């Protein structure tokens, strides 16, 4: 039996998995949880795919689903706060130990200062950092105007910079 739309779905997963995963990661800040939520979001999207009236809005719809699920997971999980082992896997370049330590320290400080930002600013800052996620898409995910996204992003970066420079 052929599964209607299954091939299309696989393509959609392939194309969107990175952004969906990163949105989950911005909320949850834990790779394992982000992976779970990403899977759940795709499964939910798959179940409702036929009822989507505007296929061109699939991405925004999917992004909202993953954000919603991630927020639910975050609220439900009391462990998530304790886990602060964040993405340091990208620093696979050849640097000396001192530089590496300094970078790690700086990253840790950035993470700490981000966690101290107000929720609204933090969310916009992290979502806007996702590659290929335009401010218009961020606005759609959060359900706020684009101008608000821009002003919040500016405020977030400025506050973060001030905090890091002190």
């Amino acid at each position, binding site marked *: 039996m052929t599964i209607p739309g299954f091939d299309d779905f696989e393509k959609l997963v392939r194309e969107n*998995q990175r952004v969906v995963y990163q949105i989950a990661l911005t909320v949850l800040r834990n790779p394992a949880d982000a992976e779970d939520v990403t899977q759940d979001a795709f499964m939910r999207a*798959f179940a409702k795919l036929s009822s989507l009236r505007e296929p061109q809005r699939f991405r925004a719809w999917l992004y909202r689903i993953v954000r919603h699920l991630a927020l639910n997971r975050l609220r439900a999980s009391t462990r998530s706060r304790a886990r602060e082992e964040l993405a340091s896997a990208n620093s696979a370049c050849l640097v000396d130990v001192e530089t590496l330590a300094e970078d790690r320290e700086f990253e840790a400080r950035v993470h700490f200062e981000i966690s101290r930002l107000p929720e609204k600013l933090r969310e916009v800052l992290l979502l806007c950092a996702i590659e290929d996620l335009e401010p218009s898409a961020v606005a759609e995910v959060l359900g706020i105007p684009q101008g608000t996204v821009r002003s919040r992003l500016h405020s977030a970066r400025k506050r973060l*910079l*001030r905090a890091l420079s002190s």
Partner: protein
Amino acid sequence: MSRCVAMYDELADIAVGGTASQAASDHLRECAVCVAELERYRVLARRMDAAVNALVRSQPPSRLLQRVTARAGSAERPQPSRGAWPGVAVGAALAASVIALMFGLRAPQPPMTPDADAGALAAWRSPTSALLKPHGIVLEAPLHDAWFNVEPRPSRLRTYVWRTL
């Protein structure tokens, strides 16, 4: 110098892409300290952005696609359709149980006949023999009168039954 300190907030604003006011532009033209500070802010802002990007731009695990498609494939597999009838049957059974409880429905008893009554009466045995059996300890040994703190009597009691409660 106090003017420079007051300027720092605006310098941070400029460093993250804000537009410099006329006053800030004028000040930067003549203050090397603030120019250096602005440059420091800009360098810091670049590092900050890189750190934020590194935080967010982790790649999803390679197994993710495989897992999602496997789950979707198993979810898509057609389930045997049971229709609405099993639900109706369960509901009817529940309703029948409730009605049976309400009306005290019991298993039908065999009809009683006079002969059966007589037979049942003849078969009946009184439980008195079992009920009248002494409930206690029978002592075969004689009891000493001293136990009762009374004068000895000519005839000794051979057997006492102590009823225990």
